């Protein structure tokens, strides 16, 4: 019942994580992030990831704003945004996003607007994928915590729901 679901949820989560690692969406840095979570900061990972989402969306909006402008020429500014995006992505282990940023940066250094546009689309895509997957991960995690929480009282008291 509930006990089963906890295990199943945990398996789901593991599987999802394994998949993401396989795909290179996440790398070891994400593991480090998880290890940093402890009793004193129990929500560390989700906290950081949410900050990351918030900041990244700002950056993506900025980047797009810069690029849609036909007279765009401020590649330096774009480079600054990119650098920040790269830094934060690599800090949470978003490997693929970071890789796209590297490519994006290369295009921007060559003042290649078309290349930048392509890279931006790719970046947005990868970012969205990451966000979805991480949301999924957090959802499973939450369910698991809930399920685990409900289980314990049952063990202590008389089981109400056999």
């Amino acid at each position, binding site marked *: 019942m509930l006990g089963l679901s906890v295990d199943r949820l945990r398996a789901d989560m593991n599987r999802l*994580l394994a998949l993401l690692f396989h795909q290179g969406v996440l790398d070891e840095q994400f593991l480090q992030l*998880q290890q940093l979570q402890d009793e004193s900061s129990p929500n560390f990972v989700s906290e950081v990831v949410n900050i990351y989402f918030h900041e990244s969306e700002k950056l993506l909006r900025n980047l797009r704003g810069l690029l849609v402008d036909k007279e765009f020429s401020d590649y330096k500014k774009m480079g600054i945004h990119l650098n920040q995006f790269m830094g934060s992505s690599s800090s949470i282990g978003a490997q693929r996003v970071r890789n796209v940023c590297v*490519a994006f940066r290369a295009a921007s250094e060559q003042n290649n607007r078309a290349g930048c546009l392509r890279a931006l689309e790719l970046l947005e895509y990868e970012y969205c994928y990451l966000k979805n997957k991480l949301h999924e991960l957090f959802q499973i995690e939450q369910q698991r915590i809930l399920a685990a929480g409900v289980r314990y009282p049952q063990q202590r008291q008389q089981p109400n729901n056999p």
Partner: protein
Amino acid sequence: MACASGGKSEGAAVPDQFPVGLRVLVVDDDVVCLRVLEQMLRKCMYNVTSCSQATVALNLLRERKGCFDVVLSDVHMPDMDGFKLLELVGLEMDLPVIMMSADGRTNLVMRGIRHGACDYLIKPIRDEELKNIWQHVVRKRWTEIKEHDHSGSMEDHDRQKRAVDDAEYASSVNEGADEVLKAQRKRRDSKDEDDTEFENDDPTTAKKPRVVWSVELHQQFVSAVNQLGIDKAVPKRILELMNVPGLTRENVASHLQKFRLYLKRLSGVAQQQGVLPAYCGTVEQNLKLASLGRFDIQALVASGQLPPQALAALHAEFLSRPAGNLILPAMDQRTLLHASLQGSKCIPVDRNVAFGQPLMKCSSNITKQTSQSLMSNEDVHSEFAAWSSKHLGDMAPACALGSVNEPNSDMLMSFIQQQQQKQSIIPEPSRSINVQPSCLVVPSQSSPNFQAGNSPVSVNQNRGFRNVAVDHNNPLLQSNNSSGVGQTSEVESKPPCMLSEFGAAGSVSSVSSCSRNVKDVACQRVPSSPSTINAVLQVPNMNCMQGSYNGKLDMVQGSTRNSIYVGKGTFIPSRFAVDEHEFPVSNVSHQVKHYVQNNANKVKQESNMDLTENLAWHSEAALAALFAPQTTA
């Protein structure tokens, strides 16, 4: 906050807990990184203060002087350049500063070194790297002490020795060397000098009282220097002019060095550019001859990795002065050297050795990269020239060696040897950079990443998340690769190996099952997908495989279980690349089903066992890493 709890806890109680309680100030405008670093540093048991603005950080440092041991700063910040912060902290507070950036390209790292960074970390920063930052604190203290060793009074000497002992004690205790501990204790006790300055045994704070160069003090210093004239500004005379009680000659000397560097950076391009080549050649030669053990130059030069130009570049870079073209024409070494040294009272040996030391440290990294970047680095040339013009003429203060006026190429060697004999201090201890190899990421890091899973981008451009699954196994990094859709010919290294191993494993049957599915699906991108899969079997050519997956996956939504995601195994980051060539191909289709975006529970469960089996071919470590955190989360 930082002051109150700073460092005393470990100092008074158990010294061997150093570097616990190290007081770190982190500055980064990126909140994500800041938060992560903060947490990592806390885990290292450091005392962390974080700031997202450089100006705030600077004020904090100024207000709470002596409350921090080390500063970690990002390079790119909106309100102030990280390098500027670095310089200011170095000048005003004399703290070790470690730079960080997502950008680890050589030229930027070089700038960090030039501006005096103790270290340069590249994001993402691992906690192992952070655990080690205390070494910069210790190293700085030690070199400062050594710097004063020669010219300091007995008082200073012993007081500082005590600090050194403390530091040694701390680090030796870290290694658990009790005998050393006792010996040092005895040594310390035997030196019965005044110890009023030491409040506690904390190695991080127990040392000579650090002189804080406040704005007023600095003004006095500057006016004294101006009065004397920059050429004649000797620490002794500056000290007399300043007439500040409690200020020692060594304080002035070290500050003067920094000030000179600062001036150099401010002033324009130097004049004697011609000195550069000959000088470099000479230095290289002499360094080679002088067998400077600690430099490793020999190894570098011998291995042909350190061309004279690179050496020159490094010299110049170290002196942090933008320069012109660095190509070194052939020149008569003697005459040039002679010219450059005319009128000098003292050969700036310490200067040479100074740059030699960090030079070696960074060169060992830099030579790993193309030294072309150095050669074409505009910054180097005039930097060095500036250095030579200014310092050859007027280097006096910390020059422990006698003046060597022979205008010949042996001079460098001779004073370098003297340097070694007298063990005089490198005048730039605070600048001794320790650019660890780990920090310098090979610039071409983009390419391996690209290859991590190549696929054309355009496939999924116009699709929503339906194809999320698809694209994800075909990382799209097209911008630098001009490959067309379906042809990722630039693929190389591990991912392709995976696939080829996959093919080679002889699981033809499953592959053919895949190919069957591929045929079912219209591959709009790769018309030859069936044949490509066969081709895969013969030739480890990942490209086609990927291409075929691309096309096929467009139809993910339409097809049911046939949506193959065989390629999943192929896109594993090299880290996960497997030595064994087994790949449970029979599970491939399961994996694929699992990957369909339906999120059908039944699908997931079906593949549950499969996935773990599939993962069996991962290395143990990776597996453990993957699963361990989950159990604790």
